[in-house]
């Protein structure tokens, strides 16, 4: 996958705003509803860290530096692929990963387009997808992390925004 494109992003950082969690929730729900045809619910019972064997990541650079991630079980990403492309895609591992990457990309894009100070000043990378649950992500401090736990047809899905502040 290629790196962040274009150098037109502003060098002036935008301060973290706690209201971004609600904006990220809205952005994610809109994307899942439009692309997979199912409206996810907020998973208020979820208190732990995200888990699952598939993680899609989209880098952000410019006024906001960080990453948007989307993590879920393999079966859940297969379900996304089936809903987006038809049942035959569920058994195709590359389609499942690709679908998850595109969903993550759209959540990141939808999130930044809802914040006027970011829309024109934050660039996105193309998505990367990690398969496997046994990993840890380390980022340079200081960071703010926003986690949105969702339930999609009863299956847990986590959207995270990791921001270098």
């Amino acid at each position, binding site marked *: *996958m*290629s790196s962040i*494109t274009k150098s*037109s992003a502003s060098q002036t950082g935008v301060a973290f705003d706690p209201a971004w969690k609600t904006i990220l929730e809205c952005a994610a729900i*809109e*994307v899942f509803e*439009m*692309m997979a045809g199912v409206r996810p619910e907020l998973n208020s019972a979820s208190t732990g860290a995200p888990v699952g064997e598939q993680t899609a990541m989209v880098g952000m650079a410019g006024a906001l530096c960080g990453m948007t991630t989307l993590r879920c079980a393999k079966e859940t990403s297969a379900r996304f*692929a089936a809903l*987006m*492309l038809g049942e035959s*895609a569920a058994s195709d591992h*590359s*389609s499942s990963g*690709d*679908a998850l*990457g*595109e969903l993550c*990309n*759209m959540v*990141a*894009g*939808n999130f*930044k*387009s809802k914040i006027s100070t970011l*829309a*024109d000043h934050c*660039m*996105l*990378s*193309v*998505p990367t997808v990690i398969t496997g649950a046994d990993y840890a992500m380390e980022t340079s401090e200081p960071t703010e992390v926003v986690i949105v736990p969702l339930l999609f047809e009863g299956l847990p899905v986590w959207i995270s925004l990791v921001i270098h502040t």
Partner: protein
Amino acid sequence: MKKLKVLIVDDSSVMRKIVERALRQAGLELTEVLEASNGAEALTQVQKGGLDMILSDINMPVMDGLEFLKSLAGVEAAKGVPVIMITTEGSEARVVEALSAGAKAYLRKPFTPEQVKERVTPLLGGGQ
């Protein structure tokens, strides 16, 4: 109803299929759907001629959608072929840049088949 030969350019194979599906759900009759995973591959396809429409992502490796769009200016076979940019980048600056470079319309992901129809139909010369 005119049958269309379209080129869909996106580095994600899933997204290329979703765009094709949305075009069909929008009621368009497609005779042939060509695919390319970046602007350079797309240019090769365009040079073969016969296209009725091009739908292209912006953020792609190798050659991005804006560079591809600008390159079309020098391709005889691309003359009169409408280009619609489809991307997660909803920034005003990128919309202006794409439209200035010759794109006829702009569609932001995520999209519905209805939104695809709204953008595509006016570009088909009343044949749909």
